[in-house]
C-alpha cells in the first residue's frame, strides 16, 4: 500500500471506530427504557459489528499466511457455539446463560493477556502496558472461573448452598491468593521473566480465587454476583484496551465496568442486601445459626387436593397468583395462563404479584409470564399488590418461597430480615404449590407454611396447576 493510501486507510478505520463506539453508547442508552430496549440492543450489536470489521480492515491485519484462516476459525467456532446456545436456551435458564457468556468474555481477556505476556514482555514493552495487561489477566481469570461456578450453581450441577471453609480461614485464603496474584504481577513488572510465574502466580492464583470467592455465596445472591462479575469483565476488557491502545475496547469495556457496578448495587438494593455482605459469604453464616422460632420442628403443615383448591378459587372474588422460580422450573407458566383464563371465565378477578427478584434475576418473572402471553396489565409490582392482599380471598403461591417468607418482616433474627416481601400472609387464604418441604433457594425455613390459613399442594407445579384448571372448568 502506498503511504497516501495507508493514511486514508488508517483514518477510515479510526472513523469507523468512532462510529462504533457512538453506536455502542447510544444503543446502551436505549437498553434502559422498555420501549427503546429492543432497538437499543440491535444498535449496540451493529456498533460491535462495525468495530470488528474496522479491526479486520487494518493494514497488516492479515500479515502472515495462516493469520486469516485462524481468525476465521475462531470467529466460526464462536458463532457456531454462540448462536445455537442463545437460540435454544430456555427462558428459565437465562441467568446461567448470561453467566457463561460473561465467563467466556473473561476467559478471552485472560488468554489475550497470556499471549501478550509471551509475545511482548521484557522486550521493550512499556511498563504501563504491562500493568494494565496483568490487571486484565487477574480480573479476567477471576471472572472466568467465578462465572463458571455461578453457572454450575444456577444449573444445579453444584449445590446452591454456600460452600465455605470454617470461620475466618476462607477470608484469609482469599486474601492470600489475592496477595500472590498482586505480588506476582509486581515481580513481573519489576523485570522477572518467567512464564511459569505468569501462569501459576497470575492465571492459576486468580482462577482459584475466582472459585473461592463465588463458592461460598448462596444461590439466591447469584444474580448480583453475575452482575458484579460482568462489571469485572468489563473492567478487564478496558484494561486490555489501554494495554493495546485501542479506544473502542477502552470505551466499551469501561462503560460496562461502570454501569455494571451501578447495576450490581441496584440489584442488591432490590434484595435489601449490600454487595460487600454478599461477597463476604451470602447467607452462609446465617443459615448455620438457628433460624428463629419456626425451626424444622416448628409446626405442622396442612396439605390439600387439586379439587379443594379449585373450589376455593372458583368461589373467590379476587385471586392473586404469586409465581416464583419453581413455576419456571416446572415450565408451568403456560398452565398458569390457562388457569387464569378459566378463573376469569368464572368471573374471578386474577392478578399476578411479581416480586422484584422473583425468579432468579430482577425482571426474570416478567419475561417468563410474557412468554406465556399473560396480559401485561395483570402483572402487578410488589408495591402495587401488597395493599391488595387484605382484600384478596385466595393467594396461590406457585413455586415461590423466600419472597413470600413473613420471617423477613417479623423475625429480626432471620437471615432475610428486612428483605421486602409479598405479604401473601395478609390474604384470606393461601395455597402453596410445592414440590416438597425442602426450603427455598436461600435455604431458610418459611413460617408461612405453618400458618393455619395456609394449605399446601405437593407435586409438580405444572401438573398441579393443570389439575386445578381441569377441576375449575368442571365445576
Amino acid at each position, binding site marked *: 500500500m502506498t503511504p497516501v493510501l495507508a493514511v486514508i486507510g488508517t483514518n477510515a478505520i479510526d472513523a469507523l471506530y468512532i462510529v462504533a463506539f457512538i453506536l455502542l453508547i447510544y444503543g446502551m442508552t436505549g437498553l434502559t427504557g422498555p420501549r427503546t430496549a429492543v432497538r437499543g440492543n440491535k444498535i449496540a450489536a451493529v456498533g460491535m459489528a462495525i468495530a470488528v470489521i474496522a479491526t479486520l480492515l487494518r493494514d497488516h491485519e492479515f500479515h502472515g499466511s495462516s493469520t486469516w484462516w485462524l481468525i476465521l476459525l*475462531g470467529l466460526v467456532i464462536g458463532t457456531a457455539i454462540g448462536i445455537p446456545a442463545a437460540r435454544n436456551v430456555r427462558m428459565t435458564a437465562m441467568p446461567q446463560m448470561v453467566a457463561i457468556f460473561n465467563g467466556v468474555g473473561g476467559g478471552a481477556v485472560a488468554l489475550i493477556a497470556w499471549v501478550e505476556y509471551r509475545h511482548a514482555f521484557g522486550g521493550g514493552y512499556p511498563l504501563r502496558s504491562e500493568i494494565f495487561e496483568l490487571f486484565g489477566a487477574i480480573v479476567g481469570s477471576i471472572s472466568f472461573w467465578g462465572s463458571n461456578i455461578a453457572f454450575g450453581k444456577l444449573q444445579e450441577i453444584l449445590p446452591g448452598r454456600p460452600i465455605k471453609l470454617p470461620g475466618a480461614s476462607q477470608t484469609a485464603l482469599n486474601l492470600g491468593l489475592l496477595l500472590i496474584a498482586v505480588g506476582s504481577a509486581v515481580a513481573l513488572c519489576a523485570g522477572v521473566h518467567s512464564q511459569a510465574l505468569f501462569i501459576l502466580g497470575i492465571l492459576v492464583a486468580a482462577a482459584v480465587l475466582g472459585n473461592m470467592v463465588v463458592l461460598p455465596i448462596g444461590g439466591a445472591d447469584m444474580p448480583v454476583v453475575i452482575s458484579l462479575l460482568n462489571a469485572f469483565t468489563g473492567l478487564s476488557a478496558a484494561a486490555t484496551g489501554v494495554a493495546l491502545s485501542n479506544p473502542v475496547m477502552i470505551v466499551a469495556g469501561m462503560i460496562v465496568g461502570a454501569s455494571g457496578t451501578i447495576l450490581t448495587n441496584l440489584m442488591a438494593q432490590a434484595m435489601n442486601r449490600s454487595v460487600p455482605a454478599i461477597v463476604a459469604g451470602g447467607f452462609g453464616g446465617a443459615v448455620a445459626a438457628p433460624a428463629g422460632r419456626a425451626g424444622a420442628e416448628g409446626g405442622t403443615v396442612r396439605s390439600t387436593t387439586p379439587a379443594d383448591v379449585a373450589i376455593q378459587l372458583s368461589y373467590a372474588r379476587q385471586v392473586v397468583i404469586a409465581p416464583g422460580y419453581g413455576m419456571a422450573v416446572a415450565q408451568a407458566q403456560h398452565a398458569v395462563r390457562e388457569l387464569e383464563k378459566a378463573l376469569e371465565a368464572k368471573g374471578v378477578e386474577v392478578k399476578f404479584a411479581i416480586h422484584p427478584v422473583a425468579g432468579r434475576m430482577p425482571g426474570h418473572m416478567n419475561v417468563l409470564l410474557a412468554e406465556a402471553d399473560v396480559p401485561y396489565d395483570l402483572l402487578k409490582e410488589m408495591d402495587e399488590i401488597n395493599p391488595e392482599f387484605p382484600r384478596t380471598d385466595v393467594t396461590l403461591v406457585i413455586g415461590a418461597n423466600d419472597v413470600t417468607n413473613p420471617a423477613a418482616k417479623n423475625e429480626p433474627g432471620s437471615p432475610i430480615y428486612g428483605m421486602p416481601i409479598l405479604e401473601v400472609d395478609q390474604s384470606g387464604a393461601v395455597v402453596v404449590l410445592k414440590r416438597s418441604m425442602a426450603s427455598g433457594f436461600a435455604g431458610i425455613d418459611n413460617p408461612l407454611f405453618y400458618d393455619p390459613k395456609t394449605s399446601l399442594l405437593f407435586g409438580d407445579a405444572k401438573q398441579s396447576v393443570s389439575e386445578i384448571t381441569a377441576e375449575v372448568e368442571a365445576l
Partner: protein
Amino acid sequence: MDRLVIDIAVLVLAGFVGYTVISKVPNTLHTPLMSGTNAIHGIVVLGGLLLMAESSGALEKVLLVIAIAFGTINVIGGFLVTDRMLEMFKAKEPPKPEETKAAIEGDGKR
C-alpha cells in the same frame, strides 16, 4: 500528548458515561440490561484480532483462536439472548408455535 494520558482520559470519561446511563433503570429491565452490557464487553474479541498477525508459535496461535472464539460467543450469544428476552416484553402477538416448541424442548446447555 502522551498516548497513555489520552487512553486514561478516555477510560475515565467512558466510566462517567456508563455511570450516567444506568442511573435510572426500571427493575424489570435489570436482567436484559445485564445481559446487554454483558454482550458489549465481548469487545475483547478485538484484542484477539489485533494480536493474531503479530503472534508466533503454535501455542500463541491456539490461545488466540480460543480467545477469538470465546469473545465471539460472548458477543453473538449475548446480543441474541438479550434480543430474545426483550422480544418477550413486547409479546403482543401470540408467539409462533415453533418458537415456543423450541423454547420448551431446548435444554439449558451452554
